[in-house]
């Protein structure tokens, strides 16, 4: 997943949680980058017609931005589910965050053929828990 897609996914999750625009600060926090880096990428997303940035209000995704963000979220769900259910990784959330930048969506699509994902994906993604709400991890003692 490329950097732009990671931003789109993050903005999408924040704007859904906030039920409104996502602030640059919260985007930077979520991605663990500086506000300056976040601003730079938000500018690029705006240039590509994927987001609208209004000063003092925050960032809102365009319709096209939402479509791409949902695709990116789906890719992320596939990685989490694959790690949890196929590889039995207990720390699947942390590992998914580390690996998402290296796993391309074409690779995730292939991994998707060996996992059980719910048809409502990615709507079942719980942003606070940072995991699919329907995900039943393959190991015992998962939180």
């Amino acid at each position, binding site marked *: 997943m490329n950097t732009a897609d990671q931003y789109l996914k993050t903005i999408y999750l924040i704007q859904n949680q906030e039920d409104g625009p996502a602030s640059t600060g919260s985007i930077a926090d979520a991605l*663990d980058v500086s506000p300056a880096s976040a601003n730079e990428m938000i500018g690029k997303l705006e240039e590509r017609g994927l987001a609208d940035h209004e000063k003092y209000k925050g960032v809102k995704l365009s319709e096209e931005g939402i479509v791409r963000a949902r695709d990116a979220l789906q890719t992320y769900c596939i990685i989490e589910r694959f790690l949890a259910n*196929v590889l039995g*990784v207990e720390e699947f959330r942390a590992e998914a965050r580390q690996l*998402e930048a290296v796993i*391309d969506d074409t690779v995730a699509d*292939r*991994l998707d*053929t*060996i996992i059980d994902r719910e048809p409502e994906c990615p709507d079942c993604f719980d942003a606070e828990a940072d995991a699919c709400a329907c995900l039943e991890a393959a190991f015992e003692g998962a939180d």
Partner: protein
Amino acid sequence: MSVGSRITSDDQLARLLQIGIVLEEVVEARAYHHYSSLDADLDAEVEDLLEHAAEESADHRRRLEDLIEDLDVESVPFDEIEGLVEARYGRTQPEDFDGVLYDALCNEETAYKFYDDLIEAIESSDVEFSVDREELIATLSAIREEEAEGVEEVTAIMEKR
């Protein structure tokens, strides 16, 4: 969350190599299983291609396993997950030869993309892994090259059909 594709530890590298093993195990070997199960006269050229892909895949898995063994991480219990993977082989069974070939093409392309991204992520990392970096990149580059050749082979057969 980390933005940007860099690999920062032996554990992370081992996990990515393990994903490579699963991709090889599932998507490439699967093509041959599907082909064998087709209820039709077998096409010798396609059979050779898929048999070769399965053999190559097994070789890639062994090379990836050797790399993981050399890493300073807890051993990856691949035997345990192999059964899980096998149980999921038949999920997306193609219905005919063209479907099998298309599936094989996607598999080779996906594997190529995976190794390409992995090599890039290793090259952009300044972490000192517990395996020799040059050897690691050389092994992965050789595997990537074989995947590229696989794409060409499948494409050539598809064009003839």
